[in-house]
């Protein structure tokens, strides 16, 4: 007996019973009914088989889908990792660039701007004054008797004096001014957008602030500086202004050190 197919609404087993009855009763419809029954059953088998094949296809398709999905997920994870590592490298390069920038613009011992950076800043101020008018001031400060300090107490103490003076100058200038290490024991200060009349008292205050003795294990080292200040005006030569600041510093030295000397000469080209 054929089992009723799950895909069919015709009950083949009922027809089979009917067929059997027709055969027993010698019913003339028997042969036709039998043909019909077999044809129908054959079609049913084909249909069942087709459905099974279709099911298998569907299953394979679903498996392929899963494979694609897991491949896709794997690649997405790999991509995320590449991006993460790559970002990490970019950050490392940015930080190294920043360090390089600091190294190329700052003095290692004192942490102040170096001469190159100080010169850049001077040029910026020159451009600003020449475009917008006004003035700015340049001060050159030199530690008094530095060679003697080095010779008497050694270079390590000399370095400490340099660091102490640098820190002191840096803390006592205004936020928008710049203090650079200009040479061995010489510092250059840019007083932005300021006239010499205003800078002179500032320079005197710097002088007092810097004059703090340095206490070492074995001695007290007296620390003072001399300062030469000049004013840059529209159209002046920067080189001449620097020479005049240096000359003012020299005058402060020859007048007995630990003082501020202002230069009022013109620096016209």
């Amino acid at each position, binding site marked *: 007996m054929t089992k009723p197919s799950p895909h069919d609404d015709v009950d083949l087993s009922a027809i089979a019973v009917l067929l059997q009855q027709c055969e027993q009763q010698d019913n003339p419809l028997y042969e036709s009914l039998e043909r019909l029954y077999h044809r129908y059953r054959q079609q049913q088998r084909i249909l069942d088989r087709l459905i099974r094949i279709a099911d298998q296809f569907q299953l394979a398709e679903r498996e392929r889908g899963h494979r694609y999905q897991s491949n896709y997920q794997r690649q997405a994870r*790999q991509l995320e*990792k*590449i*991006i*993460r*590592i*790559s970002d*990490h*490298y970019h950050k*490392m*390069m940015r*930080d190294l660039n920043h360090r390089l920038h600091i190294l190329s613009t700052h003095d290692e011992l004192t942490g102040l701007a170096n001469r190159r950076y100080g010169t850049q800043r001077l040029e910026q101020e020159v451009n600003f004054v020449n475009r917008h008018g006004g003035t700015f001031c340049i001060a050159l400060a030199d530690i008094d008797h530095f060679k003697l300090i080095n010779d008497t107490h050694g270079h390590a103490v000399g370095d400490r004096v340099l660091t102490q003076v640098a820190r002191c100058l840096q803390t006592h200038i205004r936020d928008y001014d710049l203090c650079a290490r200009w040479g061995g024991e010489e510092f250059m200060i840019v007083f932005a957008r300021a006239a010499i009349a205003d800078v002179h008292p500032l320079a005197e205050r710097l002088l007092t602030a810097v004059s703090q003795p340095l206490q070492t294990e074995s001695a007290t080292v007296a620390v003072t500086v001399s300062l030469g200040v000049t004013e840059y005006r529209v159209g002046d030569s920067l080189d001449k202004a620097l020479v005049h600041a240096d000359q003012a510093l020299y005058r402060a030295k020859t007048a007995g050190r630990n003082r501020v000397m202002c230069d009022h000469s013109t620096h016209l080209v």
Partner: protein
Amino acid sequence: MTNLEIAQTNSTPGIEADWDSGLLRLRGDSYPENSFALFQPVVEWVETYLRDTQRPLRLELELLYLNTSSVRALMDILDQLEDAHQEQRPVSVTWLYDAANERVADLAEEFKEDCTFPFEIVAKT
């Protein structure tokens, strides 16, 4: 199979692959114009070595900066090693870095993350 020897330049790492000792060494920065062209012979060398021998493979890295495509190439090589490891082949990585640059060690850790074979990150003294 021959050895592989590619000289180091500013933008490409020095690459040495020694068939007899089973050692592959990459050293330097890597930001080549064409990273596929640079790394393809390395990938092929590893593939051939793993296929034609049963000996251990050791990868020694001393890399500093890698651009994105080099990161990808290195991950491909590490994948090759991982596959070999899954087939019970003895493979290992030693990543050397300058102790002054801890960042590189962090990066090496990122590469190590998915590797189940021995992967050492060693500060150079």
